[in-house]
């Protein structure tokens, strides 16, 4: 049985996704119109933020306003946000309705082959991954929880005390070392495709 979450990456650990370049022919799933997504970063982007989500995951949904706020804070500073829906049941129609209901303004894609799940080592929704755009490629500098509001399923702070993702994006944009999350991501397991 899979663990429901996985441990934090170590401080400063950088995982390179060798060979992947934004302009390469590799695709990262499809957008909500069914078009393949081949570029996660535009020319002006310095950081790519992936938010793994599921339309039916209540904890992921509760973080939507938080991500919206981070987008407002960092979107104009070179951070490109993507909502990534990796579960097979999250079809384009379902996600379109979900995004409409929850007023999601950021880009969304369906990770139909779970390429991004593997690339970011994601296991939970909601879970975040931050990549620095470096020499046309993406280097992962953070993956894990958004903040520490949820300690585990059933243990929840009234409000977060540590905003892990916010700090990671700020550090990545500033070119500083990025701290790993202070605890595990908590939420709903991603439904992995059978090999």
């Amino acid at each position, binding site marked *: 049985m899979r663990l429901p979450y996985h441990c934090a990456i170590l401080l400063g650990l950088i995982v390179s996704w060798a060979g992947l370049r934004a302009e390469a022919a590799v695709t990262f799933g499809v957008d909500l119109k069914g078009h393949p997504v081949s570029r996660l970063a535009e020319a002006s982007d310095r950081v790519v933020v992936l938010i793994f989500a599921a339309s039916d995951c209540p904890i*992921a*949904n*509760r973080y*939507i*306003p938080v991500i919206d706020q981070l987008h407002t804070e960092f979107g104009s500073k070179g951070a490109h946000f993507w909502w990534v829906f990796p579960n097979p049941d999250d079809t384009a129609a379902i996600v379109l309705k979900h995004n409409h209901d929850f007023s999601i303004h950021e880009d969304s894609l369906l990770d139909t082959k779970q390429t991004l799940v593997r690339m970011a080592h994601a296991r939970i929704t909601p879970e975040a991954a931050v990549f620095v755009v470096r020499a046309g490629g993406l280097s992962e500098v953070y993956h894990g929880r958004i903040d520490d509001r949820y300690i585990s*399923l059933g243990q929840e*702070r009234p409000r977060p005390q540590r905003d892990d993702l916010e700090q990671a994006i700020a550090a990545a944009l500033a070119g500083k070392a990025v701290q790993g999350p202070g605890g595990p991501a908590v939420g709903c397991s991603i439904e992995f495709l059978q090999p």
Partner: protein
Amino acid sequence: MMRRRIACAVPLCAVAVVLVSSGRDSVLAGSGATQASHVVKPVASPTWSHDVAPIVYAHCSTCHHPGGGGPFSLLSYGEARRWAPQIAIVTKSRFMPPWLPEPGYGDFADDRRLSDHDLEMIQTWIRKGMPEGNPAEAPAAPHYDSVWLLGKPDLILKVQHPYVLRAGGSDVFRNFILPYPLKQAHYIRAIQIVPGTPQIVHHANVIIDRTESLRHQHPNDWEYGVPGMELVVDSGNRFDPDSHFLFWKADTPVLTEPADMAWRLDPGNDLILNMHLKPSGKPETLDAQVGLYFTDEAPTKHPMLLQLDRDDVLDIPAGDAHFVVEDSLKLPVDVDVLGVYPHAHYLGHDLEGWAILPSGEKKWLVWIKNWDIDRQSVYRYKEPIYLPKGSVLHMKYTYDNSADNVHNPNSPPIRVKAGNRSVDEMSHLWVQVLPVHVAPHGPDPRLLLEVAWMKNRLTKLPGDRIGLYNLAAAYAGLGEYGEAIATYEQVLHLAPNDPGTLIALGAAMEGAGKWQEAEEMYRKAVGAAGGGRERCDAGFDLGAVELHHDDLTHAEADFKAQVEACPGDASGHAGLGDAYASEGRLDAAEAEFHASLGIDAENEAALLGLGELEENAGHLDDAMQHLSEASRVQPDSAEVHEQLARAYAQNGELGKALTELRATAALKPEDPTIHSALAQVLTATGDVDGAIAEQRTALKLMENDPDGWNNLGVLEAKLGRNAAARADFEHALRLQPEHAQAKANLARLGAER
């Protein structure tokens, strides 16, 4: 005539709850903690269809269904498989099903805790890859397709303006005021709360605001809901302690009272829906409804909510992980404990409640070792816990204000005191008790409980105005007017011109027979009140005391002033009608009674007054109709029953007259005139033996009544018991030697011999 004002005018009762399992629960419930004792080894290879579906349907689907309070549905194999990883975690940690009390420390009616057997079954199933098994073996999934589970309610109340909960941020505590719109009172046998969007509602309490006090605190915006975690409402001038837990949780949307414990709503009452809301990620519109189911059956059992609390010593240092408060309350009467509602905010950690009996035996009420405000609930016992008089209720709450407490709303921790905000704390243990072994004509045991409760409060908070006021009101209710007056005077020392206290003190003085002083106090209250409800109450009481003591001139003048100042006060018009009737101005009286009924069709005084007028005028049909209505509205009014009996008797309906007189006697068993009247009606029906028994009862209560002895003699003579009759007539003549009828009857008896 007098309004009752023996009351806790400033109730401490912020919360009321009833937790009753819905019919659905009772069908599906199966494996509680108690079943853990007979250990059945889980099967080695459980399947969904054979083993797991019955557990999930019984314990999870009640909330986890489309439209239910759970965030996702668990009504099929596919859905269970989808959420299996989370199910494994939350059942193992016992976060789900939500149930805080430790097993073995209170045997609760709606225990949702999974048995060890069921828990192991689920864990094994998930560990072994969640096999479906044979779908044909699976039980049918439950249906949740009706909004109103008991059928269409008799009355549906809706929030005035739907509330939009913001998408994110901290939890929200909000109160929606639902005015009771009817002009007739109703007893409520069941209530269903339909929050509209149950997924965002953690829990909800319904509080009865008898005096529209919350509305008056927020005159401009009450229709949009009022923020706040806790409430204090004014329960008005009638001793009617909140006695029911009206508490909503996702799996218990219908709260049904036992047949003999309905609760009452009167015209002018508000229901307050106190809700704990959790943002979902998108703006959610909450348009809650409350469905009320009526009954004609008045309650015969009157429970009461007692509160243990130590808010007064809540001053928790930052970082203190083991801050303990305790309270205790000695019970002055025998009670059955029906339920408990422990309550703290985010720092509460270990909550204990128990009772020590006079024998020294300890009975646990509840123990929660890991408190979580998000999963708070009312807990009702499977069987009431009997506590004899002299038992002591205890609570001991431990708070964790360290950074290690994940629920701590303050980072870093700060010093925390008691308060209404979520960052403040509370230490409450509500206990619902039903007095038992109540002496038929003894004092209301709830008043004795109130005295004990308030005295306990005052030992913690000497000079506390609420405690003093409620204690004084309880003394007044018990007829201990000296104590009541002394205690109200202490309140007045703290708040010299408080109109409510002046009125209550006046009533206590009136009870003590000091009616001139009472009149002065009411007059002072009229001056102090300025306007509003207290002005109306004071004005009414002033007119009523004058009327009661035949000061008709002042009564008429003050009631006239009353109806001018309070034109919507039905009782004022009824009082003026009484004043006119006493002056013999019957047409004017009738007009005022009708004016009163135009405002409140159930005003008992107006119905009674009108009935009396009609009876005296010989309009017996009208009289019986109005008096019957008065009896329905106020079934415990001896005056109404007596008047109605008189009307029936005049109309020749002796059976009904007998019924009403017996009802009167039950309410006024020490009144000899009622037993004499019973004797007369029984004689007319031919039941002379019964009549003699009643007449003897009357004479036991009033031995020196020559008429009574004479009447008894007549009854004895009717049965040919001449010696007994003679003795009775002679008894009458010893009391009143010139009693003409006794003399004549004695002579007739001699002649017949």
